[in-house]
Structures are given as C-alpha cells and as structure tokens.
C-alpha cells in the first residue's frame, strides 16, 4: 500500500535509471528551483499553522530538540569512532550528518501522514530548521576540540545564512505574518503543486542515491550497517523525546523521522569548510546511499508503528 505512493515510485524510477546508468539527469538549476519550492512550501505551511495557535511550549520544545540533536551526534560519534574505528575527523563529520536532519525525508513524512490524515504539531517545520544547527557545532567540537581556530564565524554564516535555513525560516515567517487568507493566492504554486514537485525531487534523489552506491562498495559493510542501524536507534530517541514533550501521535512519529534522518545539504557544506580533512564521500555515501532510501522506503512506516506502540504503552506522557 505504501509502496503505491507515486512519490516513492518516482524515487525508485530515479534509483533504477541511475543504477542502469541512464542519461537521465536534472539540470542543477532545476534541482535548485525544486528544492527552493519545497523548502518555502514547508515553511509557509508551518507558519500558517503556527499563527493559528498559541505556542507557549515552543521555547522549551526548541531547547529539548536542540539537546536531542547534540545527543544524537555524540551517540553516532561514539559508534563510528569506537566500533567502526574511523579516524576522528571522519567520525565527527558523519556524526554531524546524523545528528542533523534531511528535508527530503521530512517531506516524504509529511506526505505519508497527509495520506493517512494524521495530524502533527504545527511547529514541526520550525523544529526541522532548529535541528540543522546543534549537530554541526558538536561535530566541529568533536573534530577540533575547543582549542584551535574554529572559524566559528564562517561556519555560523554558512549554517544560518545557508539556503536551507533562510528559505525554511523565511517561509515560516511569511506564513505566520501573512496568515492563511493573504496566502490563498499563492497556494496554487506552493501547496497544490507540492506533491508533484516532491515527486520530481525524489526522482532526482533516486539518481543521486544511485551515484553513491559506487563509494559504498569501496567503504564496505560497516557503513551500510551503520546507515541502517543508526536511524533505528535515533528514531527511538526521537520518539522518546516526542513522548516526553507531550506531543500528539503524529508529532511524536514525526520527531522520530527527523531524528532518524541524516542531512545531506547543510551539513556537508559546513563540514567541508570547518573539518576539511574529513572525507566527504563517506558521509554522503552513508546518508544518501543507505539512510535516505532506508528511511523513505521502509523506515517511515516502522517509526510510525513504533510511535503507535509507544503511545499504547504509555498513553502519552507529556509534561
């Protein structure tokens, strides 16, 4: 049933075309346009929802979620360094990817829950934006310690002013300020086309994922195992945090998905500049070649089931 979702079928089409070494590829300009539209749409939708309700708990949730991102990065580092025996820089860089989040995975999650008419908290896009940041800082600290020149200014600019956060937060603010009525005339572009654009995006993600398989073969089994087990662990943490924050079932599962996802845009760019000695191929191969397909194809329903189960056990904890 899930596998009938055309969005996933587009991903499989891209993956197949890529593995068969087809000529198919999206021009970089089109990839840029599509990812901009997705980021803005996610932000706008979140902003409209936020405007509808009081958000007293927001600051608290933001903090909790930042803590979660840091924790996940530390956890991943431990595994990579001490089980995988990777060099310090590589372990730190990959850890930063897994402590952060993937917007594409989030978008597939939104689609999954929309199809099933399951609601989730309006602040999710904000938490998505917030989660991009702490893992990057933790990753840099792990690689460098506190001692040396960290070029933190450059990194901060890279992160806060990177395309991802600007569009996500910009969309949130615009949606929040303008409200649903003022926004109505731009919904045909940003909301009605959303799923079609997501389909195109996943077609390209399939092509990109296929291109990672070569590096995977070179770096072996450990990365593959890590790329599958880490999101299973992270999602558990995410679901626990969601429960702890008293979120709805949808919100808790979404937090599980966010925790399970690994960044492949903001973090690679930031790591390239602040931890250049880390091999970028390793983290991309794990995040894009293993974890992304795992999450969108089989992970999301699993995290949904885990959250449902946790809810049945606890009845929702909450503060």
């Amino acid at each position, binding site marked *: 049933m899930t596998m009938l979702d055309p969005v996933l079928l587009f991903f499989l089409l891209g993956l197949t075309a890529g593995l068969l070494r087809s000529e198919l590829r999206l021009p970089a300009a089109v990839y840029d346009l599509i990812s901009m539209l997705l980021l803005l749409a996610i932000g706008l939708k979140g902003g409209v929802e936020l405007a509808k309700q009081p958000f007293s708990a927001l600051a608290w949730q933001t903090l909790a979620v930042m803590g979660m991102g840091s924790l996940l990065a530390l956890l991943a580092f431990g595994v990579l360094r001490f089980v995988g025996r990777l060099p310090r820089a590589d372990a730190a860089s990959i850890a930063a990817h897994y402590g952060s989040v993937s917007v594409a995975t989030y978008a597939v999650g939104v689609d999954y829950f929309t199809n099933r008419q399951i609601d989730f908290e309006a602040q999710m896009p904000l938490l998505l934006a917030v989660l991009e940041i702490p893992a990057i800082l933790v990753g840099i600290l792990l690689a460098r310690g506190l001692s040396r020149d960290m070029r933190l200014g450059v990194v901060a600019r890279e992160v806060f002013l990177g395309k991802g956060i600007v569009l996500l937060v910009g969309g949130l603010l615009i949606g929040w300020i303008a409200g649903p009525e003022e926004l109505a005339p731009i919904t045909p572009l940003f909301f009605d086309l959303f799923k079609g654009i997501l389909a195109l995006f996943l077609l390209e993600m399939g092509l990109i994922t296929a291109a990672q398989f070569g*590096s995977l073969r070179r770096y072996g089994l450990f990365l593959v195992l890590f790329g599958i087990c880490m999101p299973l662990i992270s999602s558990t943490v995410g679901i626990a945090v969601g429960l702890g924050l008293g979120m709805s079932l949808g919100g808790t599962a979404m937090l599980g998905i966010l925790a399970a996802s690994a960044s492949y845009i903001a973090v690679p760019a930031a790591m390239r500049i602040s931890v*250049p000695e880390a091999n970028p191929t390793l983290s991309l191969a794990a995040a894009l070649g293993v974890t992304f397909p795992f999450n969108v194809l089989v992970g999301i329903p699993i995290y949904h089931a885990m959250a449902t189960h946790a809810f049945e056990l606890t009845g929702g904890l909450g503060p």
Partner: protein
Amino acid sequence: MNSTTRKLLTVITESALERTLVEDIERLGAHGYTITDARGKGHRGLRSAAWDESGNIRIEVVCDDVTARAIADHLQARYYEHYGMILFVSEVAVLRPEKFG
C-alpha cells in the same frame, strides 16, 4: 597590438570554496578574476554538478608573476591537502598590462 606578457593562473576546485577563494585572491593582489561552472574527475573522484555543491568551479586570474606565485603558494598551503583542487599557470600576452597589476 602593443602587448606584454602576464601569467594566467587557472584553479579548478570545489564550488563550496568560491566565496573564500575569491576573498583570498583579491587580498593577495589580483585585480580581477573570472569564474565558470565545471564538472570533472580527479584523485578525489567524480564531481558531477548534479547539484550545486557537488560541482566544480574554474577560476582564472590574469596577473603578474609575483601575484600568481603568491596565490598559488597560498592555495597550496591552505587548501591543497583537503580539497579537490588543481592549479596551473601559463604565459599570456595581454593588451593593457596596467589592468593586471
């Protein structure tokens, strides 16, 4: 054609470095630069430009010998080890040599 020779320094490297490199190049005394987008393959594998950050840039700087040397040394010291980067220099005849320092 009243010409003199200058150096043409060409750097091919990761797109992610554009902003930083441009600052370095100006600081080290170049009077200008030209950038084109590129893709390619080298010791660090394929850079396919499938999306923005995964591509290369090709920077050209026309300048005098000393500046070319300074930029090349700086890039070698600062970026060569950890980034996909190649760098080569050739002689070119320019028309208005004063334009290139």
